[in-house]
């Protein structure tokens, strides 16, 4: 029996992460009952014990760009399917938190509130959450203006403020309304001939808006065309 849950479905930035866990028989892991009530320290502690004791752990990650290209439900199901595929043991049944199951060649069942009700799903939710938090800490280093280590990509007030000030990063989900709103507001300002990225720091914007700068048109569907084989992509 494998439990499956996801983390980051509702975040404005970063990947959706899913985990699949198979626990050994017998009640060996205490404290799994309601993962949403866990402190970060308790979650880390349980994560280490799950990793040590589980018969199998699989993780699936779907990046923000795929969330935008498909939709967040499909991305979540993809991550869950990846997590199950990454298991090194074959479960007889897969129990998935929520009310929908990913396409699997295994018996599966959706269990609403499964993360609170079924210990093996609780374990999966802890693995997904801890794994994603670590990925977000890594993204905080690579995109230092947004505070991903603090809010993990969720729509807090300070995240919203950073978004409005700096515009989205490449790991933001531009298909999500709060991010889309920032992009649209920037496009409206540009049509009016105003600086595009920075809202709320007019002095710096005026000083930084350089007449020599170039307008670059980027068709969004151009990604495939620019990856030419044989080009030197090392830096």
């Amino acid at each position, binding site marked *: 029996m494998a439990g499956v849950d996801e983390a980051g479905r509702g975040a404005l930035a970063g990947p959706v992460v899913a985990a699949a866990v198979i626990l050994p028989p017998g009640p060996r892991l205490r404290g799994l009952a309601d993962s949403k009530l866990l402190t970060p320290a308790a979650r880390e502690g349980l994560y280490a014990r799950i990793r040590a004791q589980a018969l199998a752990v699989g993780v699936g990650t779907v990046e923000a760009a795929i969330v935008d290209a498909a939709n967040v439900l499909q991305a979540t199901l993809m991550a869950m399917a990846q997590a199950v595929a990454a298991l090194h043991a074959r479960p007889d049944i897969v129990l998935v938190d929520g009310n929908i199951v990913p396409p699997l060649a295994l018996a599966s069942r959706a269990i609403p509130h499964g993360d609170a009700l079924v210990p093996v799903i609780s374990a999966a939710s802890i693995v997904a959450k801890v794994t994603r938090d670590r990925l977000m800490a890594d993204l905080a280093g690579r995109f*230092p203006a947004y505070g991903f280590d603090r809010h993990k990509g969720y729509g807090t007030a300070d995240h919203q403020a950073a978004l409005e000030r700096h515009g989205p990063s490449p790991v933001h989900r531009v298909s999500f309304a709060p991010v889309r709103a920032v992009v649209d507001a920037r496009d409206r300002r*540009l049509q009016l001939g105003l600086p595009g990225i920075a809202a709320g720091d007019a002095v710096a914007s005026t000083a930084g808006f350089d007449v020599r700068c*170039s307008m670059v048109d980027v068709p969004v569907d151009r990604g495939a065309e620019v990856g030419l084989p044989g080009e030197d992509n090392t830096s």
Partner: protein
Amino acid sequence: MTRRRLQLGESGEAIAARALRRAGYRILAERYACPLGEVDLVARDGGTLVFVEVKTRSSADRYPPGEAVHLRKQRQIARVAEHYLAAIGAGAVPCRFDVVAITLPEGGGVPRIEVIRDAFPAEGIEVF
């Protein structure tokens, strides 16, 4: 890349980021990598998005670091920039390519840092 040059490059990025912050830039991305390559820093300078290549040389090197971004490298940085712009949902955003040239004196000491604004043009690049 030799171990020594790798070390120079890494410390150079940290030095460049500090220098840019002092000059009023906000660092948005460090070592942004995509399938088309990597750009050392992405920053915001007021309303302009700036893609920054960091060039570090010891003063023993023959050529000044500002001259070390070849056309081929410029084009690669431009392609990475295009990828970045597409990923942030940008139709048209003012942008610019800067080079931060760092010269490390022989035998240690204070590095010389030069921020070259608009080091090469976006409109001169074929892929645009």
